[in-house]
Each structure stands twice: as C-alpha cells, then as structure tokens.
C-alpha cells in the first residue's frame, strides 16, 4: 500500500509546493475571473431580463457560480501546462523512467491540480454573500464536494490535452478554441432558456452544463429560493459530473500511456 501511495503523495506534494513558491500564479488565475465578474456583472445587471425569471435574481448573482467555475477551469488547466514542457525535457522525464505505473502518475497530477483549483475556488466562495448568496453547513459541504468533482474532471481534461501536446502554444490554442467555449456554453454566462434552439441543444450536450447545474443546486441547497437557470435536475447533474470525472481520468491515463513507453 505504501508503495502505491508514496509516489502519488510525492508527485502531489511537488505540485502544491511549486505553486506555493510561485504565488503570483495564484493571483493571475483568480484576478481575471474576478474582474470579469465585477465588470460584466455590473454592466449587464440592468439589462439582464431572462425569460422565466421569477425571483428577480440579479445578474451579479446569476453570474457568480459561473465565475467560480471559471476559476476552477483556469487553475486546473494552468496546473497541467507544465506537463507539456516537463515531458519532453525536464523533470517529468525522470518520473517517467521510474518504476511507477502511468495511472498513478496521472492520478497524482490530477490530485495536485484539483487541490490548487479548490484552494482558489474556496477563496472565491468567501465572496458569495456579495452575490447575495447565503448558505449553511450542509450547503457548504455539498458545494465543496461538487467543486472537488469539477476540479478533478477539469484537471483531467487538461491532462488529456497536455499529454498529447508538443508545445505550450498548441495548448493555448486549445484553451481558447475549446475550453473557453465549453465554459461560455455551460449556462455560466447566460441561461439556455432564452437561447435559440440550436444553441440550447449545444448546451444540452456540454458536460460542463451539468457540472454548473450541480454547483448551482448545491449553492442553494439550504434556501427555499430556487436557483434561477439551474438547468437539468440535481441527480442527473451529479451523475454526469461524476461520469465526466471518470471518463476524463481514464482518457488522461490512456493518453499518458500511449504517449510514453
């Protein structure tokens, strides 16, 4: 057992310590979403009149869960970028020639990214009252669990891409062309209710839609107020988010195994 855990914990620990020693990274991953939230949130607040809005939820409040998910996305993806360089030349080569199976290496990397993303997500969670969202203990626990799942899935998605990338430029292109649209079309930015049919359908097939829905459900768990634009039901959202985690992890492990001996 120790032989299995030791490599995992040591790889995980390295990710954390590296991040701690380059704290400016912390700032950059959280600053941009925060600015988005304040500027876009305030700017659209007055004109946000979505179809079917009943509780008069403000845009600042609507946008808040999306911003938390964006922070999770940014942090988990950034945590995986080092894989691209490290694999070809550098630290990761030393890990790859060690007698450690690929699934353990990937799992440890995913845990590292998840931890970092969670830390940042929690920082942002403190601002929830500013969005007018209040939650109790049960809600907090659920919210943290959903955030963990989301962070784990997103980190694995990042790893899945990073393990097959030859350069970090390619990685940034994927980030802009794939990851940002996934986020935009998850209900983070606007609800699917008022969107034209083709767009609403695209959103239905986006796994992050369910992650975001699960997150909204968990935030409003304690209150009688329903989250507006909550999207798909709670159980389905959790199920798909869990599946997303498993599939991306399996995918990342397979990719890592295929790319190396």
């Amino acid at each position: 057992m120790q032989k299995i855990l030791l490599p995992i914990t040591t790889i995980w620990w390295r990710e954390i310590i590296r991040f701690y020693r380059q704290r400016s990274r912390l700032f950059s991953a959280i600053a941009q979403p925060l600015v988005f939230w304040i500027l876009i949130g305030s700017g659209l607040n007055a004109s946000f009149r979505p179809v079917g809005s009943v509780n008069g939820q403000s845009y600042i409040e609507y946008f808040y869960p999306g911003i938390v998910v964006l922070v999770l996305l940014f942090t988990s993806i950034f945590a995986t970028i080092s894989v691209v360089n490290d694999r070809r030349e550098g630290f990761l080569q030393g890990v790859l020639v060690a007698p450690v199976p690929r699934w353990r290496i990937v799992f440890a990397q995913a845990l590292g990214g998840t931890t970092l993303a969670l830390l940042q997500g929690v920082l942002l969670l403190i601002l929830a009252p500013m969005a007018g969202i209040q939650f109790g203990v049960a809600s907090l626990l659920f919210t943290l669990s959903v955030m963990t799942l989301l962070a784990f899935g997103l980190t694995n998605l990042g790893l899945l891409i990073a393990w097959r990338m030859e350069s970090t430029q390619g990685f940034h292109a994927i980030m802009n062309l794939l990851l940002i649209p996934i986020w935009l079309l998850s209900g983070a930015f606007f609800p699917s209710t008022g969107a034209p049919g083709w767009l609403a359908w695209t959103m239905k097939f986006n796994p992050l839609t369910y992650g975001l829905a699960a997150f909204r459900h968990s935030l409003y768990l304690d209150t009688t107020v329903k989250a507006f634009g909550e999207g798909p039901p709670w159980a389905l959202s959790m199920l798909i988010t869990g599946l997303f985690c498993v599939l991306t992890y399996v995918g990342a492990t397979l990719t890592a195994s295929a790319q190396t001996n």
Partner: protein
Amino acid sequence: MENKLEVENLSHSYQTRRALNGVSFSVSCGEIFGLLGPNGSGKTTLFRILSTLIPVTSGTVRILGYDLTSEVKAIRNLLGVVFQHPGLDVKLTVTENLRHHGHLYGLSGKTLHRRISELLEYVGVSDRASDRVEVLSGGLQRRVEIAKAILHSPRVLLLDEPTSGLDVTARRQLNDYLRVLADTENILVLLTTHLLDDAEACNRVGILDNGSLVALGAPDELKAQVGGDVVLIEGKSKETLSTAIAEKFGVSPVLTDGQLRVECERGHEFVRDVVAAFPNQIQTVRFGRPTLEDVFIKLTGNPFVR
C-alpha cells in the same frame, strides 16, 4: 543475474526517417561505455530507448538479463538516468528533489534520509542541501543530478551528454566520479557524448554515424586503426594542392573543415618533404597523433560536425 547490457540489431524509425539502423553492442558491469556521435547520429534515440522512454520496435535489448520489451518494470528498477536537459525541479531544494526521487523508487523515512546525506556528501554538495536548485551553478546542479540518479542504488547508469554546459574542471571531476562508480560499485555506465575528451575517458567507445555503429572498441585500439600520424595542411587552392600532393607522395588527402588531412606512417618526414615540395602553396601545417575525430573521419569520410 547476467551482468551485461546487450543491444542486438536495434533499429528505429520516426515516420519516414530511419534514426537507428541495426545497431549491436554489449557492455559489461564495471565498464564505462561511451556512445560518440555528431548531432543527428541517432545517439539520442538510442539513449531514449535504453532509458525506457520509447519502445523497442525492431531488434532486442537485454539489460542484466531482462528483456526491454517485456520486462520494462524490472529494468526501471535497475536504471539510473541522467538526461541532457536538467531533470531537477529548480523551485525545490536539493534535498526536496532527492526526496521526491527516493519516494518514486519506494524509499522513505530514515533509510532515505541517510542515503540522501551520504550522497550529498559524496558529490560534495552537503552544504547546499537546503538551497533551491535555481541558485546553484551548472556544475553543482549536474552533481545533484548524479546524486539523484544513483540515489536508489541502480546497477546501470545512463547519462545523456552529461558534460554539456560544464567547464573543463567540472567535466574532469564528473569523469572521475563515473570512474569511481564503475570501479568500486561495479556499476555499468553508458554515456552519450559529442566531446572527444569524454570519449577518451571511457573504457570502450561506440561511434555512431547516421544511425549505424561505425566503430566499436577501446579508444586506443580505434586510434591504432588510423595508422601512424595525422598531418593537417592549409593552403590557398586546396583542390589543386590535394591532387599535387597525392601524385607526388602517393597518399590520399581528405578535405575536411577547409583543411587537407593526410594520414601517413612517418609524419615528421612527410611534413618536411611536403613543405619543401610546395613552399608557396602551403600556409600552415599541423602534425599530431590521431584522435577519435580522425577515426570518425577515416571511417565515414565526413568531418565530425558537432
């Protein structure tokens, strides 16, 4: 357990380009073996195969009796690898890097702690143990890399261009360390290099060119193949001079690096005669014992491009 690294008829291709072409050699424990070759000769590919990073696709490799295709895990436990590109995390301290490495190989606690201090002592970096790697000089970093590679007591040590970026003193020290490791611990050391000095320090050398092994043997044996002496001549019109020298002395000059290179038995007499015969065409004449570079030129007909 067998104590040999055996490569048999190893070939490797990337899409269309053939990087290795039927390479065979064998190295014993306690021996330092150098793979010498210019850039693009296939030595990095060979290194990556031996270090288990890319799979064997054609031919066989056996390391201490284990097959590299079917027993990768057993082999990984036996290998210590030093890559050309720094494999240390510069944001971590020296000790943290070594501890991370030890954990990957299942070492922990007191045993690991003791082993780390032992090795830092051995490579002379003890006083920098808690410094971040980024503040260490290139030479010191290389020593930490060596410590890291032998931390788990491997039986086989593979090094890719270990002396690149090191000054002369640090290079000599490194070669001395390797010698001690091979002699006292009976470790099999295999290194790649494009530096002739490093190759001279090996027990045996394999010279790679275009994916093929063109020479294999002790440095002295290989140099003995070249013949007596090597004379390098620089002159104004090299082609004409070349033909003239060939006709007059019955030798075959080779034009490399803008110089005419002539191998001959009694070099000192040849220098005297050639200068007397073509006083106006010759600008410089150099005379020396053959080096491994001459071996390379003789065998491939090409200059050794670094």
